[in-house]
């Protein structure tokens, strides 16, 4: 029975992947991609990666899908011109041959994998109690491989700076996107008032539960960012001006606290990002709490895009 379910899911996944590539227009392709992302999270569950499944559903399918959908709306006029640039049969046959070659090489690699697979799980299981967290993924993200997570937070901030720097000179420091207007008594405004309190509780719960159960700051930040976006879309609040100093302080606070904890480790434990004996759990919680506002702001502002109007309006 489980084999049948797995087979149906992967066949659907393949079909949706083909769909995103061959669909007639960009809107259909992106709609297919969102369904693909949700189906992909089922595959992650099947691979026993609950944390990955949550991240995929929230960020891979949800945020990326919404971002692409927003772009489709603004690119409508450019699609017809692109169609005339479709490569000829020769290029397509070559592309097909290359793709089949890459797939065949990967298949050979997968079939030649050693048995049993190499693993770091025993080491994680042995060292996890020292960190005080129960979720091995959180342990890896914030203790064993904390440097990766620190660099990731910095990459996110750099990506945001990159997006902002695409603003036309006259709008530098201004607000991203259009000011949204919605009927103040409409359904959207109603949801934007009712949902955020629930979403904020769920988001904070996911952060707290992430220490011992699936969840964590990324999944939590996505929900909180979505709530903020909802309030903006309903016109209840405007997008912040990117020149706002408080906003910028909030964005860099997370990585700065992370680096500070890392330097503290240099002094107390003898190496960068080391935690002193017995202090791992409080340090991890401190980093997670400090990173949360950064992640919420960065994810939401990456969705909003480059500044497109001055700060006054």
């Amino acid at each position: 029975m489980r084999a049948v379910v797995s087979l149906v899911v992967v066949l659907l996944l393949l079909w949706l992947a083909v769909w995103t590539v061959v669909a007639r227009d960009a809107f259909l392709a992106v709609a297919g991609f969102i369904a693909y992302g949700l189906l992909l999270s089922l595959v992650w569950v099947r691979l026993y990666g609950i944390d990955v499944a949550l991240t995929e559903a929230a960020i891979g399918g949800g945020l990326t899908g919404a971002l692409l959908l927003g772009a489709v709306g603004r690119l409508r006029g450019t699609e017809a011109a692109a169609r005339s640039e479709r490569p000829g049969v020769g290029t397509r046959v070559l592309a097909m041959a290359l793709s089949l070659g890459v797939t065949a090489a990967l298949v050979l690699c997968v079939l030649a994998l050693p048995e049993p697979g190499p693993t770091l799980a025993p080491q994680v299981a042995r060292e996890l109690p020292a960190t005080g967290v129960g979720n091995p993924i959180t342990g890896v993200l914030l203790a064993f491989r904390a440097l990766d997570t620190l660099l990731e937070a910095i990459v996110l901030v750099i990506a945001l700076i990159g997006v902002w720097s695409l603003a036309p000179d006259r709008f530098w420091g201004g607000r991203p996107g259009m000011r949204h207007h919605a009927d103040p008594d409409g359904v959207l405004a109603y949801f934007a008032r009712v949902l955020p309190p629930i979403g904020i509780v769920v988001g904070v719960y996911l952060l707290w539960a992430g220490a011992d159960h699936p969840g964590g700051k990324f999944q939590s930040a996505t929900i909180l960012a979505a709530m903020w976006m909802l309030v903006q879309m309903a016109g209840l609040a405007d997008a912040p001006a990117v020149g706002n100093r408080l906003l910028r302080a909030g964005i860099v606070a997370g990585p700065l606290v992370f680096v500070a904890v890392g330097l503290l480790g240099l002094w107390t434990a003898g190496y960068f990002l080391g935690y002193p004996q017995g202090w791992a759990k409080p340090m991890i919680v401190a980093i997670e709490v400090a990173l949360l506002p950064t992640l919420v702001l960065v994810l939401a502002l990456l969705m909003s895009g480059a500044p497109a109007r001055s700060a006054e309006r």
Partner: protein
Amino acid sequence: MTAETLIALVACALVGIGLYGLIVQPHPLRKLVAFNVMGSGVFVIFGALARRGAAAGMPADPVPQALLITAIVVAFAATAMTVALLLRLIESTGSASLAAEPPAADGEAR
């Protein structure tokens, strides 16, 4: 065949499908979607490797799984950056064409 082997093999096909779309779709947004499909194929292969590393009472090796979470978030950041670049390209040139100028050159202008 175990479920993770099946999923890994399907992921190999996802990489191929994404690569094909990346090459043949002329519109940059379509290329971006195809590139994301290709990337997700790589992630799933990695996830299947994590599942093969099940040991010590854990259903999968948590180290690659944690790296996957990082990877998904970074992929989102890169996608957002690309979308912003694309919108700026259209704003300044009025077209989303990636063709090299003069348009005699056949192929990628990335």
